[in-house]
């Protein structure tokens, strides 16, 4: 196995969010409050009714562009409660909804999964990475999931192996593959570097 010598095409690209004018209703999930991304999105007005789920305070300055009477903002203290609320919102929805998610990668793919579960297609969901490039990682040896991994090599919290974090990405698992870096020469661990700030 190798990594990083060429681009792996399963690795997601995250363009910035843009209102989809073909949508009848819009649901924006803000996992991490990122002032610049929100300001950029709000350069044009949302083309239809908009509802926002945010992790953090609804009064955060980054949300000022949304301070309009007809926009519903729901605030959540944790990722878990936010995702549950998203699933509930999606359960009650009908055709024409567009889902947008902004934040760290692990959360983005949880939102994507919730959308796919109710039959939304890839082009009805937009994901944009913000605040960190810390990676969700799946250990291919023991199946353990880890989140917000910032280094090229990490120790699996499930099986304790030293894993190299590859660029190969599974949308279904919402994670990059990690595999044992010293399998061919036990104990030889390359330098650990922060590569996903």
């Amino acid at each position: 196995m190798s990594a990083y010598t060429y681009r792996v095409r399963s690795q997601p690209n995250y363009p910035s969010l843009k209102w989809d004018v073909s949508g009848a209703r819009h649901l924006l999930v803000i996992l991490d409050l990122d002032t610049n991304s929100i300001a950029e999105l709000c350069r044009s007005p949302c083309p239809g009714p908009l509802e926002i789920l945010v992790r953090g305070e609804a009064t955060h300055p980054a949300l000022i562009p949304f301070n309009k009477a007809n926009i519903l903002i729901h605030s959540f203290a944790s990722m878990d409660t936010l995702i549950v609320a998203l699933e509930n919102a999606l359960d009650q929805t009908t055709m024409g909804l567009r889902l947008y998610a902004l934040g760290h990668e692990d959360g983005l793919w949880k939102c994507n999964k919730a959308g796919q579960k109710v039959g939304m297609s890839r082009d009805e969901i937009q994901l944009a990475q913000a605040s960190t490039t810390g990676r969700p990682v799946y250990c291919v040896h023991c199946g353990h999931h880890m989140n917000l991994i910032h280094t090229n090599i990490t120790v699996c919290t499930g099986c304790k192996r030293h894993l190299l974090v590859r660029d190969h990405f599974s949308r279904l698992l919402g994670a990059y593959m990690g595999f044992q870096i010293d399998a061919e020469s036990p104990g030889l661990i390359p330098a650990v570097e922060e590569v996903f700030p």
Partner: protein
Amino acid sequence: MSIPFRQETFRDDFTYRNSAEAVRRFPFPFPQDAYMYSVNIEPHVSVDPGSVYEHTFDIDEHYIAECEDRAITLGKTKNRFLALPHMMDAQWDTLELLMTSMARDYPDLFALSRDGAKWHWMNKPLNIDQHFVFGDTRTLPYAPLEYISRQGQGDFILLDQREGNLWVDAGVVTTQADWSLAFDVGMSFNEWHGPVPMAAEIGVFDRALKFLLMLQHGAPVRRLNWTMTINPRLDTSPEHYDQWGPDRASVTPENVGAKVHLRVEVQTLFRLPRSNGVLFGVRCYLASLNDLVTNPAWGQRLHRVLRDLPQPLAEYKGLVRYRQTAVDWLKQFDQSHS
């Protein structure tokens, strides 16, 4: 025609060996002295009696031992059989295709009789005598894809076709060259091949996908792929990389002929009639360098292919640690080398 099935292992003591006949019919994959990716797809039609291309699913002397090795892998590790819920029709399609093909091509080994949905399957080499109702999963001991894959050689992957793409949505994968079904399940065609270097840049995957989306029922196709494996190990999965990774550091000039194996995949693709899915069969053949050099033309060609293989391909295929040792050893079989 009866096949002398071998008693052998693909792990631990590695007693796997090829007979002279198995070497003779080995699908040597190089049509020229250099290798690069191409869309090397041809119709999967019966050619050359006795060859691996004679029958839809080739059964050879390793059949029983391979089925035993698969049973060990499926019993030991999770998620080597996976099927997303919408793949049930494709599972039954696959069971039907394998049973009808095997019974037709090897009537002395397999028999299938059908009375409407009531089917009776007999697999003599594995001593299986199964009555079941086609379409009723409760009448089989395993899900249909797992059931029939446990009686087949090579891996079986089911691709769903939708949104102008093919999706890896089910499979039994226990004889793979370092890819994980548990990780890749649910991927699109291009995501699945994401880690392969160089091929996308020359348009191989885009053209292959376009071609496969048009695949017709009754007109299967095949292609060859290859890598190398140390020891005759079928289960070179990422899950068990810690077990087979160290083997790569064990190759010496003394053992290279016996340890290093050319691993050739005869890949077949079938459109499935009910599900409109595609069955992707990946049949693995293993031959040691000692086996291969019994054919002088192969020894010479393999020397040149390995010597001149682009470095990114050597890295991707995991050959870097022992390539030079193999090239040095093979040189003696290439008398006209420059």
